[in-house]
């Protein structure tokens, strides 16, 4: 739907590769957190990234909208090369939506205001239009009736759906999900995953750090396994789960599937 809403000329100008990561290396102090990451994400592709904690998967995701800096290598997002130029960074961030593990909704704003803040101030959209867009996406995540409430009044699952709606309001081409369900109570995981499955069917490019293997099986085009800051294995979900090639992948899948 996001792609369908843009006109043909715009479509042609966009490269087929949504995210291009080449030779990426990052250190936290002495700690080599990302080691020579190379990854091309095609337009509309959905990639689920999994791996043990500390493997660098969240850090990798956060590099894509430059919430983290890196030392060597390059990242090109939608044809925009990320460097230290703040204008390039903002251009990428306008184009890339992000959903966080802990929602990070703005507690002093209502649900509706959370959703309209960036469209009004970054896209310079008139308030009324921004609210119409926000209501559209709040309906999409099935909580339009909570629009006037403050985030603290909502359950975790509702808050995360608001966070998804807030990101969608910027009409992003790419969505990053950083463990979107790991801070949720078990009974709320499904409502968030269902929302994400709905998004996936729209053809939006998605990179999801998650351990929800059922979700990966259902929507991922590719599943990627990371450990110790390296990509160890990338494969189509069917093959990934049926015949994991790397020893570490097998071990990891054994541990989380049972």
């Amino acid at each position: 739907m996001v792609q369908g809403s843009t006109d043909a000329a715009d479509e042609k100008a966009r490269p087929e590769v949504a995210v291009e990561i080449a030779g990426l290396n990052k250190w936290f102090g002495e700690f080599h957190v990302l080691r020579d990451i190379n990854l091309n994400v095609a337009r509309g592709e959905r990639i689920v990234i999994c791996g043990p904690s500390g493997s660098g998967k969240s850090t990798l995701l956060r590099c894509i909208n430059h919430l983290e800096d890196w030392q060597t290598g390059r990242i090109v997002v939608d044809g925009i090369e990320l460097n230290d130029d703040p204008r390039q960074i903002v251009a990428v961030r306008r184009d890339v939506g992000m959903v966080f593990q802990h929602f990070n909704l703005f507690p002093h704003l209502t649900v509706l205001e959370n959703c309209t803040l960036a469209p009004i101030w970054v896209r310079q959209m008139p308030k009324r239009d921004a609210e119409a867009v926000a209501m559209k996406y709040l309906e999409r995540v099935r909580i339009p009736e909570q629009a006037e409430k403050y985030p603290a009044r909502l359950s975790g699952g509702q808050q995360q759906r608001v966070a998804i709606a807030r990101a969608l309001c910027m009409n992003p081409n790419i969505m990053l999900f950083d463990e979107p369900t790991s801070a949720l109570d078990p009974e709320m995981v499904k409502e968030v995953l269902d929302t994400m499955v709905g998004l996936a069917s729209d053809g939006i490019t998605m990179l999801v750090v998650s351990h929800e293997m059922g979700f990966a099986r259902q929507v991922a085009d590719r599943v990627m396994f990371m450990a110790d800051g390296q990509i160890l294995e990338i494969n189509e979900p069917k093959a990934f789960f049926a015949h994991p090639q790397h020893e570490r992948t097998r071990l990891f899948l054994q541990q989380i599937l049972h």
Partner: protein
Amino acid sequence: MASDTFYLRQTPLVVLLPPRARAGVLGWLRANLFSSPFNIGLTAICVILIAWVVPPLLRFLLVNATWSGDRAACLPSADNPHPGACWAFVRVWLSYFVYGFYPIAQRWRVDLFFVALAFGIGWLAWLRAPRRDVAALYFFVVLPVLSLILLCGFPLIGLPGVSTVLWGGVLVTIVVATVGMVCSLPLGILLALARRSQIPVVKWLAVMFIEFVRGVPLITVLFMASVMLPLFVPEQLSPDKLLRALIGVAMFASAYMAEVIRAGLIAIPRGQYEAAQALGLGYWRTTALVVLPQALRVTLPNIVNVFIALFKDTTLVFIVGIFDFLRTIEAARGDPRWTSPIVSITGYAFAALFYFVCCYGMSRYVHGMERRLARRSG
């Protein structure tokens, strides 16, 4: 026979109302004053304290007080062997306490200023008032210009100039306190942001300013503003005494305010910055729309704390020869036609009452505001 490990509810429980609290005065008394031996002891001590302090105070302030007459009426006499407060003194000197030496014919301008200020404060403070954006515009743009024209004079429109040397009393106290508060908040915010800046020069300038101003007493700051400022500025441009004191007070309050607000900035989780950045908001918009509204809310009690301290610190401007409210009382009580211990005590009681009413008013208002904000995000 039921098993110990198995249980299955057969019928749902009825939804009940919560038990009613013990109602009535007696219930309240028992719960709040006599719930435990310790509490009973505290209650007894408080009753004794109140009985010890309040009746003499009321006797002095109201019952035995002298409401009119001259100095002699306030002295002990056969009718009134233990005279109370000499309110007659306050009545006679009241206009001096309020206006200082401001020319009598021009005092309506000060009254108008008070009204305009009270109107602005009321409009801003009333949270459900219509058009609070206009109120802010009025308070922060229109009112300062209007006040300047009213108080200093503008001969072109027929308002003769009044030198600030003649200002005094409540007028000076209110002007110094208001200017201090209105300047210290934005300056404090800027200093706090500068101190957290990534740019070393900005950061160190802020640190130096804050630490230097905070590290010396207000009296010293006032002296420096009063004595040193003229050394740097050409004589004909040298600002007048009151303005120099205003700058000193504003600088001093800003340094404290900066640290208070910095504490609020530190309290904002990183996730808030990241969420704002991920949406494409730049530094200033992240700060203005996401970080500051939350930081100011967290620090509201401390901000008011600084305001209250500042309000009382305005009394120190007397050190550079400015006649604030307290100084006018000092001057009046020394008048040989009135001087007596009772008159002095009355003067100070009046000053205490004035400062208390102002500070307690601020405190209560903000308390109400905090509760309102807490309801929103509870």
